[in-house]
């Protein structure tokens, strides 16, 4: 009886934690305006399917992780998934308002408005190089 009560309590704690994390995730994505941006690129005004994709992805990978699913696919599939993970993280990094607020001020202060695309490219290449360095060198020391 005591054990059942404890289990019910931990289920409640788990549900509460999941609610907090899930709403936090959605809040984060919303603040970054990522979904409207992707809808714009996809050429649609309707962002509902994309929101559905986010929720489905979260649920699917939570379940797959929980049940220790294994798909036994080729390494090429891992490369495709890795590429998509990278694009998503790249969009997150680009969308961080922090990044966006720095550029206008930096460009104006240094009178580099004309060359702002060079600064953007510096950032993009820096991220790629940093990430490659991390995996190829730093993590294997």
């Amino acid at each position: 009886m005591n054990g059942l009560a404890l289990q019910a309590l931990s289920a409640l704690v788990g549900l509460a934690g999941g609610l907090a994390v899930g709403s936090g995730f959605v809040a984060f994505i919303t603040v970054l305006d990522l979904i409207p941006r992707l809808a714009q690129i996809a050429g649609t005004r309707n962002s509902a399917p994309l929101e559905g994709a986010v929720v489905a992805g979260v649920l699917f990978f939570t379940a797959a992780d929980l049940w220790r699913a294994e798909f036994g696919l080729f390494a090429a599939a891992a490369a495709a998934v890795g590429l998509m993970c990278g694009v998503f993280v790249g969009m997150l990094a680009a969308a961080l308002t922090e990044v966006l607020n720095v550029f206008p001020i930096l460009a104006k202060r240094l009178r580099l408005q004309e060359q702002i695309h060079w600064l953007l490219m510096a950032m993009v290449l820096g991220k790629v190089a940093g990430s490659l360095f991390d995996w190829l060198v730093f993590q294997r020391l």
Partner: protein
Amino acid sequence: MAERAPTVYIRLRKRVKMDRGQPILLKHVAQIIADPPWEEAIRNLELARPRQKDGSYVLIDMMLIVGKLKRLIPRVTIEHFGEPHTIVELRTGTRPAGFLLLALVWILLFVGSGMAIMNFHADVSMSRVHMRLYEMITGIRDEHPLVLQIPYSLGIGAGMILFFNRLFRKKFNEEPTPMEVEMFMYEESVHQFVVTDEYEKMLERAERQDRQGEREDRREGREDRRKEREEP
């Protein structure tokens, strides 16, 4: 004056960039329609003469323009459209930033963002996530799943470019990029700040003059009372 009073139509520009050192004339800050005999004089009406110590922004207010125009042509009728004020941005020696500065900032951003992404990976235990993901997909346990990690790294660059809409610009649609919107919002905020700030300064100046007047009144009042006390 038998002559009919002239009407002047004025539409102020929102923001004007000018070189420092020359006086600000009405034609710099506004579109003007006026009757020919007056037009030249009105267009070349001097509004302000910014000095070196004045900041890099000068606010030209419609009230100032009305005052100056009334002084030029006392019976003038002014029809005014659009913004109630113009912001004049004074440029000092418009030297574009040098190549060296650009190179320096470029390297700063390159190294900094590289370090930031490594920090992010450590923060979220990205290597463990990659390991788990690789195991999920292929069933092989690998401490360094480079097959996943190298495309991931290239993907970061692709995602950022996608977001900033650089390579494919104009292909998707005519909407501005987030960077363009952000630049616009920043300039708009500065604009708003300057307007509020300059008006506040104007108000302060007026108040100080008022207070000075009041203090003189009070002093006179005190002296009157003292005299009254001394007299009887």
